[in-house]
Every structure is written in structure tokens, then in C-alpha cells.
């Protein structure tokens, strides 16, 4: 599988779309070297706005640009993009359904070195809670391209969560991405694994291993966390013996909450793999940190076995 860095792909895609659509503008709060909007800045200096280290002003300024016909991409790390300007996103972006795209980069614990302050583990919960918001999470570089394009075509507020590190391609190049549609990455009949982001890859690895034991996993990419297609989730959860959810996010208000709510009242076992309502911490290696918080293929396999026991 080819490896790609989603934030690099994001930066390149924004430039590519910027060439086709001069309404696109970008704002950053002194993290353009990490979010990769510096690529956009180099290509379109007149359409890039450095907003200093002030995320609240950045979001509301993006609103003003969008109200004047621009498609405004406001960029920061997920913690700062979704957390610091929460009320600005709520009031000035979402009540008026303003065409602002918020990029939460270095999401989850993917900024492994910087510790709890920089690790956005509750951004999906916060963004999902706001009416009129759309929440998208690419599983790889291929889907990042599709999602950024879809966000430009969609008129209204969008939050996109982008991983910091190299990730293997998992999404078929010819899959047509549609906002709101969860889709099967690998067909299977015993257990449905709902995942998003890098965890889709972990689920696929688990599926490969379990296949050798005759256990088949249906791996579903829930790359749209809002709006949630409840009917599709119900269908994808049908005909199997149990459900596993996997997310690089707090167990509060993310994929586990959503799936459990949709499947409420059904007699089906559900196992949730997530960060257990605690903050992250520094580590020298991303995989080591994922392992520490139990976000691994081993954990998925264990959950599957628990259900099938």
C-alpha cells in the first residue's frame, strides 16, 4: 500500500482547487508550515491571510470573507481549530450557515510529541454538537483529496479532521465520495467494524489476520461523522453477530456514541475502542502512543473475539 501524508495532500489539493476556483481563500494562525497551507500561500499570496496566533479572530474573519463570496478555509491544529474558537464557530459560522471550512490538522494523538495540549481528542464531539455543521474525516490521502473537493462544492460550514503522519492508502481511488455516506472498504459477514481516519487501516489489518482463522470482518469507513446516515449504519450493522467501533478520539461523543445510539434497542453486542475519557501525552513515536491508548489491530481482534466467544 502506498503511503501518503494527509496534510501534504490537503495542502496540494487546496492549491489545485485554488487554481480552478479563485473564490478559495485560506487563513492560518502561524501553523501553515504544519497544516501545509504554506503551499497555498506560495501560489496565491494575495488569497492567503496570516492571522497571527489568534484563532478566534481567524474564524470570524473567515466568516467575513465567506459572507463576501469567498470559500474560506481556516486552518489550525484540531485542538485550536475546534476548541479555542468554539463560540465563534457556533455563532458566526453555524447559526448563519456560512461557507467556512475549518481544518483541524494534527488531529487525535497524531501530534504524538507535543503532548495533551496539542492532541485533539474531543474535536469531533464538539463539532458534531453544533447544528448546521458537517464533520468529515479522511481515512487516507486518496480520501483527503475527495473530501477537500467535496467541501468546496458544498455550500455551508464544514469541519475536516486531518492526521499529521504518513498513512497507507485504504480507500479505492474510483470510489465516489458523498458527504453523509458511510461505505464498506472490505466486505465481511461475522462482525461489522465501524471506523474513521487512520483506524480504518487498523481495522483492515485486523481483518487480514482474522481471515486466516476463518473470521470475516466488514470494515466500514464512517468518514462523515455529521450528518450521520442512520439508515445506512443500521443496514451495515445487519446480518452480523456484533459491532466494533474504532476511533482515534475520546469515547465521549464520537463514533461509539453515534453507533450505540443508532443501534439502541437492538439485541446486538457492541464493543468500543477509543480513548477512554482521558488526555493524551507525549511519546517519541506515533504507533507507540496508539498502542498505549489501545488503538491497535490487536485491540480490534480482542474485541471481535470477545463478541464471538
Amino acid at each position, binding site marked *: 500500500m502506498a503511503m501518503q501524508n494527509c496534510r501534504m495532500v490537503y495542502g496540494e489539493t487546496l492549491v489545485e482547487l485554488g487554481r480552478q476556483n479563485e473564490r478559495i481563500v485560506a487563513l492560518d494562525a502561524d501553523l501553515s508550515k504544519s497544516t501545509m497551507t504554506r503551499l497555498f500561500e506560495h501560489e496565491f499570496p494575495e488569497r492567503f491571510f496570516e492571522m497571527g496566533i*489568534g484563532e478566534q*479572530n481567524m474564524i470570524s474573519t473567515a466568516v467575513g470573507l465567506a459572507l463576501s463570496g469567498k470559500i474560506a478555509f481556516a486552518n489550525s491544529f484540531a485542538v485550536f481549530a475546534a476548541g479555542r474558537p468554539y463560540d465563534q464557530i457556533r455563532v458566526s459560522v453555524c*447559526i448563519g450557515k456560512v461557507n467556512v471550512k475549518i481544518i483541524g490538522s494534527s488531529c487525535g494523538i497524531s501530534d504524538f510529541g507535543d503532548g495533551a495540549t496539542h492532541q485533539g481528542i474531543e474535536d469531533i464531539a464538539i463539532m458534531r454538537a453544533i447544528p448546521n455543521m458537517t464533520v468529515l474525516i479522511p481515512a487516507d490521502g486518496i480520501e483527503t483529496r475527495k473530501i477537500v473537493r467535496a467541501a468546496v462544492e458544498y455550500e455551508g460550514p464544514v469541519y475536516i479532521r486531518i492526521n499529521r503522519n504518513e498513512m497507507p492508502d485504504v480507500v479505492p481511488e474510483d470510489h465516489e465520495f458523498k458527504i453523509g455516506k458511510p461505505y464498506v472498504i472490505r466486505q465481511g459477514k461475522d462482525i461489522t467494524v465501524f471506523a474513521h481516519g487512520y483506524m480504518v487501516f487498523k481495522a483492515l489489518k485486523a481483518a487480514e489476520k482474522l481471515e486466516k482463522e476463518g473470521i470475516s470482518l466488514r470494515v466500514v469507513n464512517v468518514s462523515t461523522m455529521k450528518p450521520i446516515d442512520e439508515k445506512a449504519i443500521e443496514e451495515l450493522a445487519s446480518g452480523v453477530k456484533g459491532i466494533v467501533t474504532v476511533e482515534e478520539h475520546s469515547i465521549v461523543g464520537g463514533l461509539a456514541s453515534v453507533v450505540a445510539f443508532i443501534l439502541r434497542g437492538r439485541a446486538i453486542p457492541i464493543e468500543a475502542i477509543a480513548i477512554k475519557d482521558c488526555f493524551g501525552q507525549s511519546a517519541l513515536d506515533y504507533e507507540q502512543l496508539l498502542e498505549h491508548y489501545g488503538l491497535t489491530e490487536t485491540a480490534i481482534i480482542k474485541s471481535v473475539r470477545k463478541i464471538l466467544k
Partner: protein
Amino acid sequence: MSISDEKVAELEKIAKKLRYDIVMMIGAGKPGHLGGSCSIAEIIAVLYFHKMRHDPKNPKWPDRDRLLLSKGHAALTQYAALAECGYFPKEKLSTLKELGTILQGHPEMLRVPGIEANTGSLGQGLSISCGIALAGKVDKKDYHVYCVVGDGEIAEGQIWEASMAAAYYKLDNLTAILDKNEVQATGPIVERYDTNPHPEKWKAFGWHVIEIDGHDMSQVVGALDKAGEVKGKPVMIVANTVKGKGVPFAEGKADFHHGIMTEEQYQTARKLFED
């Protein structure tokens, strides 16, 4: 550009009408933002009925001048002016805050023609105005953006983020008006949380500052005219005003930031502004 006595009289009549509508919208026995609405009546009258280039029949006209009330709780004045201009039928004014009305307690752009953005969670309107002004620069448009902020509101840190951005991007198509009515919800600003000194702060942040009496029509007009001539800097008009201006029992009173008029007070206020 000086302004004729006739025009001053006409604008004063409009400000009086705006205050009448504010009082009528609030009514007796219900809370309403009387104080902060009355303090900006002259400023709003000059902007909508003299200074701004706008078209009530085409609220989204791309070349229009824009007005944002960052202190969104004073929306009553803007609602009254928009209705007077013909953005929506005047009968709507009596529906303030009723379930399903277009006239929410704080202004909403998707409900009211002429409202540019959702404001009222304080501190955000100046940043939104900066964004509109930036877009004007990018698109080489000659519209001007006006933004009214409160002297209580500027305790919000975001105001100062915006003030630095406006100066950095040399937004001379942006004029902010500080409604310096000196009273916040819980008392006089100097006693509660003193945001002074205002002109010095804005100058230090890179703005061109003009100080005026915010209830003197010729001064309001003069300052706005002068603001349009400043190049390379955003302009802050520090408008010295009186909270509740024109309503004697409410003037300077924190209780009428969001107060309730008795039936007697309501009748008194109404008669003051009747033609």
C-alpha cells in the same frame, strides 16, 4: 464636507423616530435592551440615512456599504432603521422576540434582510467586519464597512486580535465606532471593569482615532466623512454617548441595559418621541 441645518434637522427627526420604535418594540412589563439601543440612535440614523451606499430593494448588492453591530444586543435600533428604509414591513417591529419572528433578541442574517452577520455573542463583529473589508481589498471593491462596538464589549480579547489584524492589513475601508456609553450590564464601566483609556489604546494598536460627541449629528457626520479619507489605516471613532439617551429615567442607568419599563414609564417614553 459640511452638512446643512436642514439635513441635521432631518436626521434628528429620524433618530427620534428610531427611539420611538425602540420604546414601542420593548413595550411595558417586558425586558429589553433600551439603554444600549438609545445610545447609538444618532450613529445609526446617519449611517443608514446619510452615509451608507445601500439599496433596501437589493440587500445583497455586492457593492453596498456594510454595517455590523458587534454589540448585537442593540439590534432594536438597527431593526427600526431597516424597517424605516424599507428592508421589511414596519408592522414586523411589533413582533420582536415573538416565537417564529424574524426579529430575534440578537440579529440573525438568515432571518432579516439587511442584517449582515450573526452578532451578539460579544467580541465577534469586528473580526467579521475585518473579513468583509479584506474581501473588499482582494476584489478591489470600493465599499466601506462600518462596525459598532461597545465600551463594555471591548473587554473581549477577540476585539484586540481584530484590532491588530485590521492595522496589519491596513484596512482603511473599515471604520469602527465605539459606543462609549460608559455603562455595562452590572454598572458603570469605571467601577466594574474599566476599559479606558480608549483613544490611546486604539492609537497604540495602529488605528486612526477620531473622538466625538456621539449625539451631535454634525460631529457624527463629520467624523464619518473624515474616516472615509484616511488612507492605510482603519479608523476608530470614539463616540461619547449616554446610555439610554433621550429617556430621562433610563439615562446612565445600568438597570436599563436590559430593563423593564413600567406602564407609566413606557407611556412617558413613548410621548417623548411621538410626533
